[in-house]
């Protein structure tokens, strides 16, 4: 597992209070991990902080699964 994958999964599990084992690539924040709308906003904020970036709202809306978060970070950073 790449470093970015690990960091994203760690943040997701911390923010959403889910076991790291339950945080799979295909996991949907809302449907699988029980996030509400405020949780998803907080999650995006946490990703911004971790990866020192700003995720525009229209991009943030498209990040609904763990894989999409990993892809976003991979595509937009470094």
């Amino acid at each position: 597992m790449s470093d970015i994958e690990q960091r994203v999964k760690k943040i997701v599990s911390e923010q959403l209070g889910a076991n790291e084992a339950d945080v799979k690539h295909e996991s949907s924040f809302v449907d699988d991990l029980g996030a509400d709308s405020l949780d998803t906003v907080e999650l995006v904020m946490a990703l911004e902080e971790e990866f020192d970036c700003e995720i525009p709202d229209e991009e943030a809306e498209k990040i609904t699964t763990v894989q999409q978060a990993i892809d976003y970070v991979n595509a937009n950073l470094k």
Partner: protein
Amino acid sequence: MYEGQVALVTGASRGIGAAIALALAKQGAKVVGTATTESGAAQITTALEAHGGLGLALDVNDAAQVESVLKQIAEKFGDVSILVNNAGITRDTLLMRMKDADWDAVIATNLTSVFRMSQAVLRPMMKARFGRIINISSVVGHMGNPGQANYAAAKAGMAGFTRSLAAEVGSRGITVNCIAPGFIDTDMTRELPENVKEELIKRVPLARFGDVEDIAAAVTFFASPSAAYITGETLHVNGGMYMA
């Protein structure tokens, strides 16, 4: 009671804001009060320094200044856990004569600033799973008052803002409430002509203007653990002149 808490009170150089800042400071919070001028900020520092508090200059309409003040507070004391949106102005005139500038200035300083300040402190509050946002509105926002359409609109808007934000962030342990003072003895009401004051007092069952300490007491209550289950609410502190 508030040891370890960091409170930010806007418009704290005089009147209700000064009393709120002092009350929170006396009970152990680290209090930062803001004023629009450096001399106002210095006055706040003088009032609060015995309790470890501080005055800073801040124009609540300037987003860059808001950011810089919050950064200074975070570095010196830590993140703000109690925000009191108290800064406010009046530009009283009958609507027939009200200029766009009178309307815009009051909405910006009394309402838009509440949005800006609240948004700015929200992130650390959400992380901490704790926060108190206390908005000082006015009885006029509920009753209306001739000559104050701008002021009443801003203060009523504050109540709607308060209820919406309370619904958004309640699950994070953050409460958002309003306190609606009636006629309080401050510079703002001292400007009123004597005969107007006499007429006003006739409408107050408790037969006097309120003291700034009456409002400060309501704020310290909302900020305290005792008020943990109250959110989205407006507490009227007006001597009975308006009973909601």
